[in-house]
């Protein structure tokens, strides 16, 4: 199922599942990820699944590329482990002060704000992976009519809770961070909770997210 296995530096195995991004390939990545995670092989220090790749990092003091590659090649893939399949609703306020790039997006997409937002709020989104920063979900797939490039100059600081769009994906900035996605709103929900060590991420790969539009009054109530 893995198309190509190579090394990424001297302390990681790079598993390539193909170039396309779709749920089928991603579910293969998640299956490998879960099976390896459950098997707890000594020396493996990190597993980083993404749309169509899985990176397996290891401790070079304990093991090496060849040994880790063999583990991956001989891995028994279980399909019925506990992949998260929650359905979540995320409230989003798209009023001016939170929708930092909506005006620019109107021009980029040549569509009025109402149409952009109606399209965005009408669909459910699948969580392919989390990362870049802690807990950030990469959600897809957004409607073709909303595909836009990243900002030409990325922001140094994107506010916590910002909802961003780029190409076929949307995401939620779990805390203030640099970033270049087109910001169309903000959620008052805490999507990453570092104090909850067992379950810090609200959204996990395999989950489905729908966004619910709220006004500023309702947004502010979350903080009361």
């Amino acid at each position: 199922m893995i198309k190509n296995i190579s090394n990424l530096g001297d302390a990681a195995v790079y598993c390539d599942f193909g170039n396309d991004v779709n749920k089928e390939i991603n579910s293969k990545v998640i299956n490998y990820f879960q099976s390896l995670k459950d098997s707890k092989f000594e020396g493996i220090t990190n597993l980083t699944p993404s749309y169509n790749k899985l990176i397996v990092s290891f401790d070079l003091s304990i093991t090496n590329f060849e040994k880790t590659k063999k583990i991956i090649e001989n891995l028994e893939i279980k399909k019925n482990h506990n992949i998260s399949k929650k359905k979540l609703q995320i409230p989003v306020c798209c009023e001016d002060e939170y929708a930092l790039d909506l005006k620019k997006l109107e021009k980029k997409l040549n569509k009025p704000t109402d149409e952009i937002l109606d399209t965005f709020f009408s669909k459910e989104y699948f969580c392919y992976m989390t990362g870049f920063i802690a807990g950030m979900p990469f959600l897809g797939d957004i409607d073709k009519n909303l595909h836009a490039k990243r900002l030409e100059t990325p922001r140094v600081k994107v506010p916590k809770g910002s909802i961003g769009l780029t190409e076929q994906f949307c995401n939620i900035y779990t805390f203030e961070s640099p970033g270049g996605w087109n910001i169309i709103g903000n959620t008052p929900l805490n999507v990453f909770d570092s104090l909850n060590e067992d379950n810090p991420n609200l959204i996990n790969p395999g989950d489905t997210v729908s966004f619910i539009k709220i006004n500023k009054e309702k947004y502010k109530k979350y903080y009361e």
Partner: protein
Amino acid sequence: MSENFFKVIRAGINTTFQDLGRNNLNHIGIPISGVMDKRNYIIANKILQNVTSHPIIEFAYQGPRLVYHGDPLNISVSGDVKFKIFKHKNEIEGKCYETITLEDHDEIDLISTNKSVYGYLAIGADLNLDYQWKSCSINTKANIGSNKGKKLQDNQKIEVSNIKELSRRKLDYINSKIENIRVIKGTNFHYFSKESQAKFFKKEYSVTKLTDRMGMRLEGERLDNIINTNIKSEGLVKGVIQIPADGNPIIMLADHGTIGGYPKIATVISADFDKLSQLTPGSKIKFKEVNLKDAETIFKLYEMETNNIISKIL
């Protein structure tokens, strides 16, 4: 029972508690973190006979000034660090790589690192720190780790307990300088023109000021991408060199983002991380290609060398 603690008079520029970091959390976006210069971290702790994973104070460029209150306690400083000890109004020039005994009201001023970035202050006692995912390492961007995920603050206290026996130990050691950064070709090496591939190994790159615990930005001959300046976002590891559209390399360091979408031209080998992290802005570096087998051998040598250095602590 008396209370033993340090009080922070001046926190320094980028002072954090660190250990070996936290594993198995990349998939939720949490990087390993941990000390930048592992060898200097291990040595500072071994001088005090601390265990390898003992928490340490890491600082960059300028360290903290601390006053100590309590029963006599040993500390050690590693790296290339200029520092002073104040004992009853006597000012003593500090020496790295040896035990220093602090008594009630003594002060230590970690003034600066010399032509390097990171220095370490190890303490011969337990530090009463909060742990997150079994590590005290602070990731200031995500506010994870001890000290509420924040850098050391002026006026805060650092409580210690279980003070160790005050034996005297020292090591003759000089940090060696690096000439080349050894790398293994990356998964997207072929994204770059033949000319750029050659430039990457022939030309010098300089370390810019936009370098921190997350990444090291370099400047030099622009590397031309002939396939695509973006890839589908995928996992990163420490040492990966990404090339964004502007053609300047960025090397992933301890607190790096776990996922990235720029092509990977190469990855720095594990044995060179310590020396890489000590390169100050303006330093020139050259990349040298090694294959995987060589990198594994070089790593074994690096580990043997570290053990050999530790064995010379007297």
